[in-house]
């Protein structure tokens, strides 16, 4: 049953990418699209193979990374509301990237700066909230929210001091936009490696979700495990941000929806969220390209417009069920 569901999600993922190549400001009929796929040299073929397909694949990779990162952070915080965007990890990555751009750092190094920003941000949040006292999810979440505001303020500072001609490119980091996205090979490797590592940790994550001391009593060396999960979550967020800027709500909504569908066992939740995160962002980006076509919206606006009501709905459901959100 669960395998069937995963297979269905995989099928939908592939389907979403094909769908994304067919949609856009240049309309194509089905037979035109079919011909264009086969002839990459034609005008439509070039549009599909060089513009739409790479963009759709980038969207898929970024979406699955954010969903995975969300799953990991929710376990870390023992709070289903955790998300790289909410906790300021995306903000830290975006700030470091922007700072790099202002100082004219080579484009190749920007992802490393994003990683640095994400790591600093996550260390700051966990360092401040952890302290010596007991580990508290609420304190951690609040610290994350405040840290996110701090990054937002620093980003505004940079924007206000930047020349007009670089503003547009910088706004890209803030709203989350796939218009300029490319998909470097290393990011695919990061996705595959993180996915395998996370899947290997899945049963440990189940135990960790029940609390740090419970996990230790069940045989997990939690200190090492927590660090590994921090690191994975940071690398995934940083890679996603360096490709597409800080896109919000994917890491929040996707694990939530998948938990409703497949339950909380990470051995099934991780692959389901990874697949659904990918296809969710491909559809969101397709909407972003076509909704006001030929004008394009930043995909972060779409995910927020889809995510916020969905999130409020879920929160309300949780309240009705008498569950602590």
């Amino acid at each position, binding site marked *: 049953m669960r395998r069937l569901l995963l297979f269905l999600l995989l099928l939908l993922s592939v389907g979403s990418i094909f769908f994304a190549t067919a949609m856009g400001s240049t309309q194509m009929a089905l037979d035109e699209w079919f011909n264009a796929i086969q002839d990459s040299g034609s005008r439509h073929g070039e549009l599909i193979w060089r513009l739409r397909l790479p963009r759709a694949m980038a969207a898929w990779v970024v979406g699955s990374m954010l969903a995975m990162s969300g799953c990991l952070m929710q376990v870390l915080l*023992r*709070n*289903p509301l955790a998300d790289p965007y909410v906790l300021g990890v995306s903000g830290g990555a975006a700030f470091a990237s922007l700072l790099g751009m202002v100082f004219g750092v080579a484009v190749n190094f920007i992802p490393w700066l994003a990683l640095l920003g994400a790591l600093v941000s996550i260390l700051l949040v966990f360092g401040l909230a952890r302290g010596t006292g007991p580990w508290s*999810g609420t304190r951690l979440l609040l610290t994350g929210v405040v840290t996110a505001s701090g990054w937002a303020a620093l980003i505004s500072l940079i924007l206000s001091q930047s020349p007009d001609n670089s503003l547009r490119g910088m706004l890209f980091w803030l709203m989350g936009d796939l218009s300029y996205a490319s998909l470097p090979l290393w990011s695919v490797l990061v996705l595959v490696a993180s996915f395998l590592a996370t899947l*290997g940790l899945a*049963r*440990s994550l*189940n*135990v960790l*979700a*029940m*609390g740090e*001391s*419970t996990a*230790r*009593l*069940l*045989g*997990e*060396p*939690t200190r090492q495990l927590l660090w590994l999960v921090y690191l994975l979550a940071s690398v995934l967020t940083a890679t996603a941000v360096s490709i597409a800027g800080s896109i919000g709500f994917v890491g929040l909504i996707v694990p939530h929806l998948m*938990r409703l569908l497949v*339950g*909380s*066992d990470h*051995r099934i939740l991780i692959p389901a969220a990874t697949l659904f995160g990918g296809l969710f962002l491909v559809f969101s980006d397709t909407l972003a390209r076509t909704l006001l076509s030929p004008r394009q919206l930043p995909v972060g606006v779409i995910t927020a417009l889809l995510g916020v009501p969905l999130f409020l709905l879920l929160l309300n459901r949780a309240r009705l*069920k*008498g*569950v*602590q959100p």
Partner: protein
Amino acid sequence: MTLVCQSLDVSIAGKNICRQLDLTLAPGQFWGLLGPNGIGKTTLLKCMAGLSAPDNGSILLEQQLMDKLPRRVIARLLGMLQQHTVYVFDASVLETALTGRHPHLGYWEREGAEDKQKAIDAIRVVDLEGFESRCVTSLSGGEARRLAFAALIVQEPTILLLDEPTNHLDMKHQLRIMNQVEQQVKHRQRAAITALHDVNLAARYCSHILMLSGEGQWQAGPADELLNLDNLEQLYQCPVESVMTSAGVRFYPSAGPETT
């Protein structure tokens, strides 16, 4: 399989819980840990479980220093029911009981039919039959508590540390849990220590008693030697009466002017 505390000093926030505690939990022994509120019963149990470090002294598990053993090895030998059980994520009752198998499974290994049977049996023991697919976040406080105990049974530790296992439980389930611990101790040669507030549960079930009375003072020994009016009045700073019943001596707080 024994757990040995050697001249253990434990404190929390500068307050002594026990000084120079020597204690051996041997197979077949069921210890009751008694003491007034806030005296440090939980902290001591956490220390015995290796969750926090003692100030001084050592804890030996199977003749080996516990802080040198990997958590996974400890978890196969020693299990603890913590005082609070809060479930945040919507796992099912069966999935949660199965987490007890975690230390016994290999890295990529999945729970087999045998593991599942153990979980189902434990769920029956705690009277949660029919709840297997229920979501843990929808359980009542007492039900969540029983589920946590089931997960401990599934873990199959030879040393059981229980922090107020009867919290939130009605009479029937208090007895059910205590009977189960007694059975594990007697028939499967396990050792248990349980923090309790109900002196009569201790009198009924425990073979040995450890009393913590503050300032690092402690007393340990067979239950019938330690459970008497003088000790209990001193321990709880409250007048106590005893009644002889067919099952043995039972204790009640007497309603004197001192209690008001």
